[in-house]
């Protein structure tokens, strides 16, 4: 298995996540897609770590951090979703247009 294989998988995963984030109407869906993108990035980091600098572990550590941040992000994001749902009674992103010019 070459590095290219892993990178390809991570690239596709990222693009899928991106697509989801751009197209899902459901806010929860957007959040989930973002999680996918995080995972793609993680996979990327670990693959590079494994193939290019196997004697070091920095990639792993940073991945760990990303997992932490992603978890935090998920928590906050979902909390926001709950709040929005409670206040606006919708979770569809096109219904939030407070920023409308």
């Amino acid at each position, binding site marked *: 298995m070459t590095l290219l294989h892993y990178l390809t998988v991570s690239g596709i995963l990222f693009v899928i996540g*991106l697509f989801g*984030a*751009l197209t899902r109407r459901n806010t929860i869906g*957007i959040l989930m897609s973002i999680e996918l993108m995080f995972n793609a990035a993680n996979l990327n980091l670990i693959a590079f770590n494994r193939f290019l600098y196997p004697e070091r572990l920095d990639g792993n550590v940073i991945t760990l951090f990303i997992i932490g941040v992603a978890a935090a992000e998920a928590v906050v994001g979902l909390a926001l979703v709950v709040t929005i749902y409670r206040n606006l009674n919708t979770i569809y*992103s*096109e219904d*939030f*247009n*407070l*920023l*409308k*010019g």
Partner: protein
Amino acid sequence: MLEHAYLIPIIPFVTSLVILLGGKEGKDSKMPYLGIAAMGWCFLQSSVLFFRALSGRMPLEAGKEFFLHQRFPWLEWGENLRINVGVLVDGPAVTLLFVVTLVSLLVQIYSLGYMHDDKRKKRYYAYLSFFTASMLGLVIASSIFILFACWELVGVSSYLLIGFWFEKPGPAYASKKAFITTKLADCGFYVGLLILFCYAGTFDLVSLKSYIAQGLLPVEVAKAVGIGFLIGAIGKSAQIPLFIWLPDAMEGPTPVSALIHAATMVVAGIYLVARTYFIFTAAPTTMGAVAWVGLFTAFFAATMAITAYDIKKVLAYSTVSQLGYMMLGLGVYGYTAALFHLTTHAFFKALLFLGAGSVIHAVHTNDMREMGGLYKRMPTTAATVGIATLTIAGLPLLSGWWSKEAILHDVYAVSPGMWVVAVFTAGLTAFYMSRMYVLTFLGAPRNEEKHSHAHESPLTMKIPLWTLAVLSLFAGGILHYNGLFEHLVHFKLPEGSHGSHHAPAYLLPGAAIFVFAVGVGLAYKLYSGSLETAQQLRGKLSIAAETLEQRYYFDDFFLGLVKLSDKLATACYWIDSRIIDAIFIDGWALVLRALAAVNDFIDSFIVDGAVDGVGTITQDAGWGLRKLVRGQVQEYLLYVSLAVAVFATFMLSR
């Protein structure tokens, strides 16, 4: 005793603080006794010094003209600049110490009776101690700077004492007037100090003296310094034209007036000139100025005393006049004579004021027209004041006679013309003093009610009176005997300054006795009966009398000056708030507005078209773009990712 001379000013100073801060205020305060005790000690020490110096048992420092010169640096700065604080004890200083402590002690004892019912007794005694302390400091200071400091303190304590009964508007106003007037003069002193230090680099009297003796100080500078100091002295010693505060200062308690007039405040000016005599003698012009100031003051003050009916004002003018004599004496190289007169004058003037206080205490008025015939009611006062009156009027062989003769002698030596005026003034003195005495004590009572209430003062007031009376009678003679005082003062005339006129031996005493006799006689004739003759005379000379009563309009002049400065102040403030402030606030606005106008012109004719075009386009674009902004977060994300994707790919793949 001698080496601890510094204690003399310090003890009363500390005492005043103790009195002020400790104990309870009130009529029954025991603090006055503390003040008297402290002053008693100072008097004891001073008189020991004085008598030892007088009897020649206190040695001068080797090769010097003083007994003691102690100093230590109070302020040091720069490379090598310093101001010392210290004591310089020489003949004049010892004399003044004796006089000041004596008068102060007597005044304090006297005040026990006089201020018996005052509710702020404690404060009064604190002020008295402070006043005396400042004066004593002034007397023995070795540096002119410290002398000036004490000089100012004397001023402020006189401010406090004159305004002691501050609830009344009169004293409040008078104290302010006294302070401001003397402060005006102090500016001259101040400038003198600046000039002096600029050239000589020291304030130490001894150093200065040797500096000037070596001829290092240019005459022009000495002149400037001398004039500055003279202005200071004019203010403090109430010379013309700055005497105006002194009559008003009578608003203070009478014992305070005695202290101010006899020993402390007003003699400070004379003492300053005496202390810095070497500067004056270095510039003969200033000597002339001193003499003329003295002569004018002596004469005009004496004329003003003629018309006054307020007993204290008469005494005030007489003080001014006598101070003029001293100044005159100093101006004609009669250093010894002036100091001699200062000493004797202190005794009889203190006595006069304390006597007047006794009278006022008894009849509760200052107006002599309501007195008369008081000798029956107050024999002690009448007798002692009588002695003082004769002394100041110049009855031969009393204290005043000796000192006045000494001055007149020196005046004649320099200028017989001045002497004529001075002798005439002596006659005036005899006249107005006798007039005062006659109006007060002799004749028939003019106000029966007040007369019947009058009573002799208590013992605490009588003791000072008698003491001073004795001194007035004999002190002059004793000091004159064998040149005792001359020896003490130890003054050497600068070379070439001796007067060239020699009077026939009989002329001087003869003239003096003549004017004395005429003055006293005239006064008795005019005022012993009813006042009608005097009133008629006044009616005939109404313009002159009016001028005298208005003090030659000096007051109006200075009030005008005050008004002028008030106007100036108002004008300044107007400028400040209306112009300067306006320039920096509204002015900026104006400038900006002008700039805006120019801008507007350019805009409307040149740039406007282009700007309008741009504006329209922008507006339209804005409206168009606005439609894109729909508040859809996801859309934004879309645009962002599109941009990032395109750009990143493009940039990285180059």
